[in-house]
Structure formats: structure tokens, C-alpha cells
């Protein structure tokens, strides 16, 4: 034993606050007593108030300790959970007064603990839905385990319960490998030690002075008894998963823990709580099997079973193949490479647990503990399901996946084989990870293609995010919010006019039907033909024509009043809808025209003068063509306030003079013009958008409608031409200020640099004492 040792910089015991928390035996005692009291009180509470009104018991066990505390501390500081566990704490005293027998070989089996956990807990959890939500069941289970623990502690020595029987004994030992701490001794001080107080103080019959050399701490639960006995014990910060960079003795049971826990939690949840919530849940094999056995109610259990089957299959078969490729024996390959799976569960669980903490557990913990202490408190959760930033917790499992790959690579490096073999071996050994990635991608695919089950169909359905509708609603809601102070006026109608609209105003939600479909198919555009806000023109006389960029006729598919046409190239597409009817002896010839400019950023089309060529057609008798100005030189040209638009009216392909052109802007500005002898008419779009600076949106789109009316002896001609316009960028882009700022910058910087360089002639400048 040494009484003083110079501690390294990374030794936690040398730090003021952390050192106190971890080393001070009085503090540790106080902490453990508190936890034990809490534990037993929660048990008592569970029995005393066995109904669902008791939220204290569930808050303590399922809110704080499992899984939040465990999953947060395991990959960080290590087996803190075991350090404060009341079983272990009380068990030490019980063993002191107990029989101290050696545990028989058949009980010294870590799979007992693993079995209790996987089958006894997770199996029950999935098969009997909501079993553990009941405080009575919870309390009963933990009491049962406590009694079992105390019995084992009484009979056997060396804290064998922790090592073999406790459901999470092997689990914490296995996942401790990710932590960034390690307990060991200063070997320099140990060289001359003859008494080994650290080993005699250890109730687990471990030898702390060997930890440094062995590169692992075996079953150490951080009880810190050895640290109190000798100063040479250190608790150091290391790199996360530092142990895995070198050779390490890994137990089979540990690797099986990784595989089975991976199966029980990420994969089973992915099946039972993930895929089961999609619309095609019934098609999955576990549900089908459950139906086959007529045990549909226990379908969760089947999902769990299949999860285990899949995971075990991929793990063992993958590693078997890898071992054959690497020409090593299966067992050593299994342990050496299987250890790379350690981050999968931890990170998936970490992400999920943190997310539910903010959406569920926070409220449950605070209200539960308040209840346990006897008073009523009401809090709201920190976040709602569906909040944007929560999505980032889903990233955690990908961090785990990437780290698993990295660890596998590190472990591969310790194996001696040729490079080619290692590459293939790597691929096969990572089958479990690949399976997990595939599961995630598949889940995403299923949800995006089929959607989630409706809410209420199966309890709680969380996957609002995967429905296609909400996504655009998300974007649009922002847009709508922004424009809310500047409301759109009613669309312009005339009960006798028909006009095209780019938006379907009959839907409650704003929908722009024109989003090009997935790449690979030809993009299409959808427009609606409206007559007023309520009805669509169902006129048998309605004929439609569509022209593409090369002025050739193309197909126009219609469904109700929606029309779809293909837009493969960039350019101007023109649509006509002609309707003729008679009313009170008057003939009406109504045309709805739409000119749509399609511009796709990825396209190879170049904007040449041909694009602007006027379309002359003979399908409609009357036509109104917009004369394109010289400035238009790109597919993304938009009309802006302050621009002058020029139109030319035609009747039977001859310029039409003295026709009335009615221009109506969305802001209710109206102008009436007459075409001149060439049939042209021109007007300037007024500036009518003056919100306050905070609300100014430079992409604020407004609609306008032009109506061409002409009556001759026989018929009344009406043609509608809708268009959109935006704020003029000259109104908010300033060259003057920019130039001033640039000149100012140049001058000021120039002066500063000049003065600074001139200063070089002065003798040495001072040193600053900061």
C-alpha cells in the first residue's frame, strides 16, 4: 500500500469535484444509502398503490434508472449503475455475515443472467403488451429479484450474484467497454508492493493491480473499496473504447449479450414498434406467424422471436464465414470481432431514450417523484412529438453504426491475415451491422411508400413525419404564416369566364400540383380549370389544346377539372380551353389560356431566341399573346412590379384592334385598356406591396388576370390570361450603398494596413501580458 502517489493529469481522482464524487467513501456511502432508500420506498409504494394512478414507482424504475440512467452512464463513465446498486451495496454486508460458500459450477453461468433479461424481461415485454406498465408488476418483479439476490449473497461469496445471476450484470460488463474511464493502478507504485491491499479489499475477489496489464477490469463494479484501501489506485479518463484497440480477453457471454440485446431492443423495437405501425404491418412474417398460430394478440412476442432469429443468424453465420475466410478458428473470431457490435444497442437506445426523455419521461419523472414525496406537481414536457429538432436524436443510431464499423476495422487490424482476406472477412463479419442498416432503410422505405397506420388504429402512432402530406404542409404553413398580415384577396371571377389556375383552390390545404415527379420519369405539370370558386365548368362543348416548347400539340390528360401535361424540356408551354355556349340568344366563345414557363436547374437546355418565338395557332379563334421583351434571357424570368408587359390580340390570326383588355391585380387594382390598330396593348405593373420590413418577402407572389373581351355581330369573345408577378429586385437591391461600403472598406483597410506597415520601422513592440 502506498500513501501518496503523484496522480496523472487524466486521473479522475486528482480532479477537485469529480475526484470527490468518485473517491470519497463517505459521500459514496451516503449516495448508496439514498439510492437504497429510494429503491425500497418505490417498491413499497408499488405494493401500496398497485393501480395505474401510482406514477412514482414507474417513474423511479422505468423513468430514471432503466433505461435513461443506465444508457447514459454506461458509454460514458462506465458501470456507475452497478456502483450505486442497492443489491450490491447491501449484498456486501449480507455476504459478510453469510455462509461464504463457493458457487457451484452449474450456477457460475453468465447465461443465467442473460436469460433472465432476454426471456424474462424482454420476452414478457413484447408478448404481454403493457405488462410492466403496471406498478404492481414492476414492484413484484423487483422484489422477486431482490429476494433472489439476497439469498444468493447470503449463500455464496465473491458477489457471485452480480457476476452470474443479475440480469444486467453481464450486460453492464459487456457495454462498459465503450466507456472513457478505466480503473487501474500506478504500476510503478505496485512494483514493490507485498501486501496488495487492493486485492484484499475487493469483495469481488478481483486483483486491481493486474487491471493495467490485462487491459480490462473484469467484473469490477466501481465500488471503490480498493481506492479507499490504497492511494495507488487510479480512475483515469481514456479515449472511448480504448480497450478495444489492443488485444483483450473477451468472453463469449459478452458477445452473446451484444447480439441478444441488439436483437431484443433495436431490432425488436424496429419490428414491433416500427414496422408494425406501417399500413402493411399485417404482411410481415411475425404477424403472419402469429395469425397462423391464432395468437394474434401476442404478435409482439413473435416479432421479438423473429428479431432474435434474424440477429443471431446474421451474427453467427456472418462471423462463421469470416472465420473461414480469415483461416482462424470460429471461437476466437467470434469474440475478437463480435465485440465490434458494442455501440449498436447503446447508441440506438441513447437516441431513443433522450428523445423520449424530452417528450415523455421528463414529465413522468418530475410528477412521479413529486407524488412519491407526497405532493402534486404539474409540468409540461419539454418538447412535442414531431418537433423538428428531435429528429436529430435519430442520428444517434447512425453514429453507433459508424462506430461499429470503425471498431470492427480496429479489431480486424489485430488479426493476422492477408489484406484480401481481411477485406472479405470484414464484409461478412459486419453482416449484423449491414442488417441493421438495411432494416432502417427498409423501414424508411415502407413508411414513405405506404404510410403509417391511421391514429387510433393501434394505440399510438407516432409516424406523422412519414406521410407525404405533412411535409409540404410544413413548408406551406411557414409561408402562410409569413403572408398572414397581407391577405390574398378573393380571386377574380366572372361567372361567365373560365380560367386556368396553377393552384387547386378547392382543396382546404394549399397544394401546388406541379412538383415534378421522381427523377427518371418525365416531369408533368398539373393545372386546374375554374369558372368560379365553387364549380368547375362541366361543359360538353369544352375542348382543350396544349402546345409544347416547339409549338407542337401534345396530350392533355384531364381528371375532373384538373389537367396534366408533360414538361420534358425547358421553355414555354401553352394551354387553351375553349368553351362555346349560347345564352339568351347570345353566342359566347370563351377561351382560357395559360402560358407556363418551365425552368429546371439541372437541364441542359439553353435559352435562345427561338424560345421567345410567338405561337401562332388556329385552334382558337381569338388569342392574346404576350410579347417577350429583350431582357428575358433565362428560363427563370419572372414578371416584376414595375415591368411593362406588352400583349397583342388576334382574331382569326389577324391583329384585333379595339378590343377591351381588362387587367386585374390580386390587390384589386384594375385597369381597362383598348388594343390599338396593331392589336397591341401595354401596361406597367404597379408596385402594390408595401409591408413592414420584417414581413417583406422578396419572393412574394401575386396573381393577376387579363381578360380580353371583344364582341362582333355574332359572338362575344372572352379570353382569360392569368399571370404572376413578384417584387422588383431593383427596389431592394442597392448598388449605391454597396459601392459606398466597398469603397469605405478599401479606404479604411488601406489606411490601417499602411499605418501598420509604417510602424515596422519602430523598434520592437511590447509583449502583451494577457
Amino acid at each position: 500500500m502506498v500513501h501518496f502517489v503523484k496522480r496523472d493529469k487524466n486521473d479522475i481522482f486528482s480532479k477537485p469535484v469529480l475526484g470527490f464524487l468518485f473517491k470519497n467513501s463517505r459521500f459514496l456511502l451516503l449516495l448508496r444509502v439514498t439510492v437504497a432508500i429510494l429503491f425500497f420506498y418505490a417498491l413499497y409504494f408499488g405494493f401500496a398503490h398497485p393501480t395505474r394512478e401510482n406514477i412514482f414507482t414507474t417513474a423511479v424504475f422505468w423513468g430514471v434508472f432503466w433505461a435513461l440512467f443506465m444508457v447514459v452512464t454506461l458509454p460514458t463513465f462506465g458501470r456507475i449503475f452497478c456502483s450505486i446498486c442497492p443489491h450490491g451495496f447491501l449484498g456486501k454486508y449480507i455476504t459478510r455475515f453469510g455462509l461464504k460458500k463457493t458457487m457451484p459450477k452449474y450456477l457460475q453461468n453468465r447465461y443465467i443472467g442473460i436469460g433472465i433479461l432476454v426471456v424474462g424481461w424482454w420476452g414478457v415485454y413484447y408478448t404481454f403488451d403493457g405488462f410492466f406498465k403496471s406498478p404492481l408488476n414492476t414492484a413484484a418483479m423487483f422484489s422477486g429479484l431482490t429476494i433472489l439476490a439476497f439469498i444468493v449473497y447470503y449463500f455464496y461469496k465473491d458477489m457471485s450474484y452480480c457476476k452470474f445471476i443479475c440480469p444486467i450484470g453481464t450486460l453492464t460488463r459487456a457495454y462498459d467497454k465503450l466507456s472513457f474511464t478505466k480503473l487501474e493502478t500506478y504500476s510503478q507504485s505496485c512494483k514493490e508492493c507485498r501486501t496488495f491491499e487492493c486485492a484484499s479489499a475487493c469483495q469481488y475477489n478481483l486483483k486491481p493491480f493486474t487491471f493495467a496489464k490485462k487491459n480490462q477490469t473484469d467484473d469490477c463494479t466501481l465500488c471503490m473499496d480498493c481506492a479507499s484501501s490504497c492511494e495507488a489506485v487510479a480512475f483515469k479518463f481514456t479515449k472511448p473504447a480504448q480497450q478495444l484497440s489492443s488485444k483483450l480477453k473477451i468472453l463469449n457471454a459478452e458477445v452473446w449479450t451484444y447480439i441478444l440485446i441488439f436483437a431484443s431492443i433495436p431490432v425488436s423495437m424496429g419490428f414491433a414498434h416500427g414496422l408494425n405501425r406501417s399500413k402493411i404491418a399485417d404482411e410481415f412474417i411475425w404477424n403472419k406467424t402469429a395469425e397462423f398460430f391464432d395468437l394474434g394478440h401476442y404478435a409482439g412476442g413473435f416479432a421479438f422471436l423473429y428479431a432474435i432469429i434474424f440477429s443471431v443468424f446474421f451474427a453467427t453465420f456472418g462471423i462463421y464465414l469470416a472465420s473461414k475466410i480469415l483461416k482462424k478458428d470460429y471461437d476466437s473470431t467470434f469474440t475478437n470481432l463480435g465485440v465490434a457490435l458494442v455501440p449498436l444497442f447503446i447508441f440506438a437506445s441513447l437516441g431513443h431514450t433522450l428523445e423520449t426523455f424530452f417528450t415523455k419521461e421528463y414529465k413522468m419523472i418530475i410528477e412521479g417523484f413529486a407524488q412519491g414525496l407526497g405532493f402534486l406537481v404539474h409540468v409540461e414536457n419539454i418538447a412535442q412529438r414531431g418537433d423538428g429538432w428531435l429528429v436529430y436524436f435519430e442520428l444517434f443510431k447512425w453514429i453507433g453504426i459508424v462506430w461499429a464499423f470503425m471498431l470492427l476495422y480496429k479489431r480486424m487490424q489485430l488479426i493476422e491475415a492477408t489484406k484480401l482476406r481481411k477485406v472479405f472477412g470484414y464484409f461478412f463479419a459486419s453482416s449484423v451491422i449491414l442488417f441493421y442498416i438495411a432494416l432502417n432503410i427498409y423501414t424508411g422505405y415502407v413508411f414513405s411508400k405506404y404510410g403509417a397506420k391511421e391514429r387510433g388504429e393501434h394505440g399510438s402512432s407516432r409516424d406523422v413525419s412519414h406521410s407525404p402530406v405533412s411535409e409540404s404542409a410544413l413548408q406551406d404553413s411557414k409561408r402562410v404564416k409569413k403572408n398572414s398580415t397581407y391577405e390574398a384577396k378573393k380571386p377574380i371571377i366572372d361567372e361567365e369566364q373560365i380560367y386556368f389556375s396553377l393552384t387547386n383552390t378547392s382543396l382546404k390545404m394549399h397544394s401546388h400540383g406541379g412538383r415534378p415527379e421522381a427523377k427518371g420519369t418525365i416531369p408533368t405539370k398539373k393545372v386546374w380549370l375554374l369558372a368560379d370558386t365553387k364549380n368547375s365548368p362541366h361543359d360538353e362543348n369544352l375542348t382543350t389544346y396544349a402546345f409544347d416548347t416547339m409549338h407542337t400539340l401534345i396530350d392533355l390528360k384531364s381528371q375532373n377539372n384538373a389537367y396534366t401535361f408533360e414538361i420534358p424540356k425547358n421553355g414555354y408551354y401553352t394551354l387553351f380551353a375553349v368553351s362555346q355556349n349560347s345564352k339568351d340568344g347570345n353566342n359566347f366563345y370563351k377561351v382560357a389560356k395559360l402560358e407556363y414557363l418551365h425552368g429546371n436547374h439541372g437541364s441542359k437546355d439553353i435559352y435562345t431566341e427561338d424560345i421567345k418565338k410567338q405561337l401562332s395557332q388556329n385552334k382558337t379563334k381569338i388569342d392574346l399573346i404576350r410579347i417577350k421583351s429583350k431582357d428575358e434571357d433565362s428560363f427563370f424570368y419572372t414578371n416584376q412590379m414595375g415591368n411593362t408587359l406588352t400583349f397583342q390580340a388576334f382574331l382569326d390570326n389577324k391583329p384585333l384592334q379595339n378590343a377591351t383588355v381588362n387587367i386585374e391585380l390580386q390587390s384589386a387594382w384594375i385597369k381597362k385598356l383598348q388594343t390599338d390598330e396593331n392589336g397591341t396593348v401595354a401596361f406597367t405593373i404597379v408596385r402594390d406591396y408595401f409591408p413592414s420590413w420584417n414581413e417583406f418577402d422578396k419572393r412574394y407572389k401575386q396573381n393577376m388576370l387579363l381578360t380580353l373581351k371583344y364582341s362582333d355581330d355574332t359572338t362575344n369573345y372572352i379570353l382569360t390570361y392569368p399571370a404572376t408577378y413578384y417584387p422588383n429586385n431593383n427596389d431592394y437591391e442597392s448598388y449605391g450603398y454597396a459601392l459606398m461600403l466597398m469603397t469605405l472598406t478599401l479606404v479604411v483597410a488601406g489606411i490601417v494596413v499602411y499605418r501598420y506597415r509604417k510602424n515596422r520601422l519602430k523598434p520592437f513592440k511590447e509583449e502583451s501580458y494577457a
Partner: protein
Amino acid sequence: MLKKIHTILNNMNLQKVRFTVQLLSFVLFVYGGYFAIDFGSKLPIFACPYNKEAVGACYLIPLQHQLSMPAQVLLGGAGIGVIVGFLGFLFWFIFLNKAWCGYVCPFGTFQDWLTMLRKKMRVRFSIYTQNQFEDLSKIKYLFLIIVLFIPLLMGIGVLGSEWSASFCQMCPARVVSPMFSGDFSQWIIDFSSITAMILTALGMIFAGLFLLGSFVKKRFFCFFCPMSALHFIFSNLSMVQLKKDGSKCTKCGDCYAVCDMQIKDIADDVTSINILRDDCIMCLKCIAACPEEDALHFDIFKFRAFSSTKEGFEKRMNIEKPKQAEVKFSQKGHSDD
């Protein structure tokens, strides 16, 4: 035969070669659009698409647009698109590592031309002190964080759409690059929203600082370039590397003296083999200025494409038999400094 190739390569006049390559790249990347050449939008250089005839787009633009998608879309299938785009960037990057900066980037070439102008005007250059160097070199990572995280914040709804392409709004390349085609339309401050105003004002200020800074300091902007930071993170994956053999190095400091970016490690680090640092633009001037045999070399895979040799050094420094005529001096005249 191989020896002959090596000798020719090692003796080359780096200045001339570099000037030629830079000129050709500049013409290609800035004016290539006139010839309808399009290299896509994953280029690892500042080929700014605000310059309409540019032959592609700097990777930071699609990166910002993609990352600003709503978070659920991004972490759904669209994330694959981001990864594919990133792999495209990596594909371009792998060929030249940071030599994209030193030989191809039109913005860098422009700075080198400003440096040539300064040399002609016989104005001497400025350098940073070691402290200034250490403090300022972190700024490029700050810009990289702006490039990566502001779009992510947009994706989760914290920032609105006026922050879209926020780095581009304050990038001096947006202001300066269109000038090469005679387009001054980016010399604006966009007053449409407060954010846009501040960012474009910053853009103008940075452009002004860029013009002045590049005049007095060699490759001023490259010090702050987020593309450089992005390059450096992946520089180990590339097939060309800059390596040093420390045992041959005499720490004479010649490489440090000629380095545009003032990287001290080139001279003083005699243990590392891979001497590429985050500021390096792989202009290879250090190799050209090293008088020791094989102390610094530029490798393509394992092939030593350009090594420092005594012969090359002597050729480049024009150390030839001096003329017999005595050096000229003037008693009272002006020094031509």
C-alpha cells in the same frame, strides 16, 4: 529512362508551369460556359455559379441547399442524395488534393495575379506574426461551421428562408467572380430583409478586404477559405500527397520563407512524413525552394512526381556562372527598391 523523366520533372521551372496551368484553368472554369462545358456542381474550387458562364458550381452551394431541407426530409431518403453529392465532391477532390487550391481555383489564380501586380509595382508584401497566424487560421473553420450548420438550423425551423445560402451571401467570390465576365450585378446590398442586408453587406466588406488583402499579402483569402477546411478533413484520402523526409532536412527555412501561407511546419517539423497542413495550397513552391536532395516531395500514389533536388534548386535560382563584369553600384544614386 525513369531517371530521365525524374530529372526533367525535378528541374522544371515551377513558376512558369504553374502560371500556365493556372491560366488555362482560369479560362476553362470561368469562361467554359461559353463553350457549353459543364462540370456539374460538385467542384472543389470557388468556381462561382453567380458567374453565369462558369463551367460548374462550387460544391458549397449544393451542400447548403441540400442541408437546408426540412430535417425530416433530410434524414429520410433525401439524405442519400446528400451522401451521393458528397461522394461526387470527393471524387473530384481525390485527384488533386489541395492542388485544386494552388493550381486550379480561379479565385486563387486571381489572387496570384494581384500578387504579380504588386511585384511589378515593387511593393513589398506583408506577413502575419506567429501569434496572428495562429489566431487567424481558425477562422476558416468558423466559416465551415457557418456553411454546414446554418442550413441545418434552417432545416429544423430555427432560421427562416432568408438565411438560405448564407455563406454565399457573404462570400467575396460571389461579388468578384462575375466581374470576370463583365457582370457587376452582384455589387449590391440586398435590403429585402434584415438578414439579407447584413449578409450582403458583409459580402461587400469581405470583397473589399479581399481585394486589398490579396494585394498586400500573398493568397490572403485562402487563409480564411472554408473550402480549404473541408479539403483538409479529407486530404488523407487523396492520391497525391506532400511528403517530407525529416532526416535530410537542415531546417534552413528556405521553404518557410517562400511559402505563401507562412506554414512554419514545413521547415521545422522533421518527424512527420505527411507535411500537408490545413493552410497548405499545394503550390509546391516549397519543393522548388528546397536545396536538399529529396527532402520534400510531391507524390502521386507512390510515384515521386516532383522532388527537391540540388540541381533543380540551382536551375531555378539561376545560380549559374556569373559574368566576369563587376557588379554595378551607384554612389549617390537611388536604390531601385
